[in-house]
């Protein structure tokens, strides 16, 4: 299981704004371990999905060029204060993490 996602969900007028920070190495696979000189295998989040009221409102597909501890923010319409947003990610090694937040 991946580390828990940090998430903020806020209504700005009728726009629902979500910001998330996901603790993850996002290892690109090009680096060598200085101690062993072995190539450090790629390990990065490939998919992020956000769900609101059973609707997928946002999907991110990522490559290894997204920064360590990735940050993403996105917005959508049709949510209200008190609604829940679910956020999930999975990575190229099959790890995953999920969290939910309530719009304020």
């Amino acid at each position, binding site marked *: *299981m991946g580390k*828990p*996602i*940090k*998430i*903020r*969900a*806020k209504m700005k007028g009728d*726009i629902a704004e979500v910001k998330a920070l996901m603790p993850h190495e*996002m290892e*690109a696979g*090009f680096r060598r371990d200085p101690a062993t000189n072995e190539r450090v295998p790629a390990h990065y989040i*490939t*998919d992020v*999905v956000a*769900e609101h009221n059973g*609707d*997928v*409102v*946002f*999907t*991110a*597909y*990522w*490559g*290894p*060029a*997204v*920064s*360590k501890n*990735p*940050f*993403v*923010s*996105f*917005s*959508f*319409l*049709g949510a209200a204060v008190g609604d829940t947003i*679910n956020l*999930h990610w*999975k990575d190229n090694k099959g790890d*995953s*993490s*999920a*969290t*939910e*937040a*309530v*719009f*304020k």
Partner: protein
Amino acid sequence: MKIDRRFFIRKVLAVGVLLALPRILFAARPDKAFAATDGDEAMATLFGETPVASDRVVLKIPEIAENGAVVPVTISTDLENVESISVVVAKNPTPLAASFALGPRSVANVSVRIKMGESSQVLAVVKAGGKHYSTSKDVKVTIGGCGG
């Protein structure tokens, strides 16, 4: 401006709950485009056409990236019926950095932080109404001063 303590409100709005992943959620990631080692190839694979330059795609990215490991990018557009937003870093080993699939309820405004191996052209590509539109910027990545 001073760094305000409000920058992060403690114990923010999140309730860190781990959920079971519904199977249906993850749609098909464009793996082939992510594997492409050439910017044009990545775009051809992902878009099937060369995007048309458009000033309606707004790419906010620093002119000089303070550190190539973390370059903040924001892409927005006032185009209608936006289906996806993608970020391509021409000189990265695998140029396609991120692609965001939006839905009918989406507001076309996405931020992410990316890595840049070296100074490069960065393209924001928006798919709207079945067509591809792009804006590009040249971003310099700083080189540290000390010889170490």
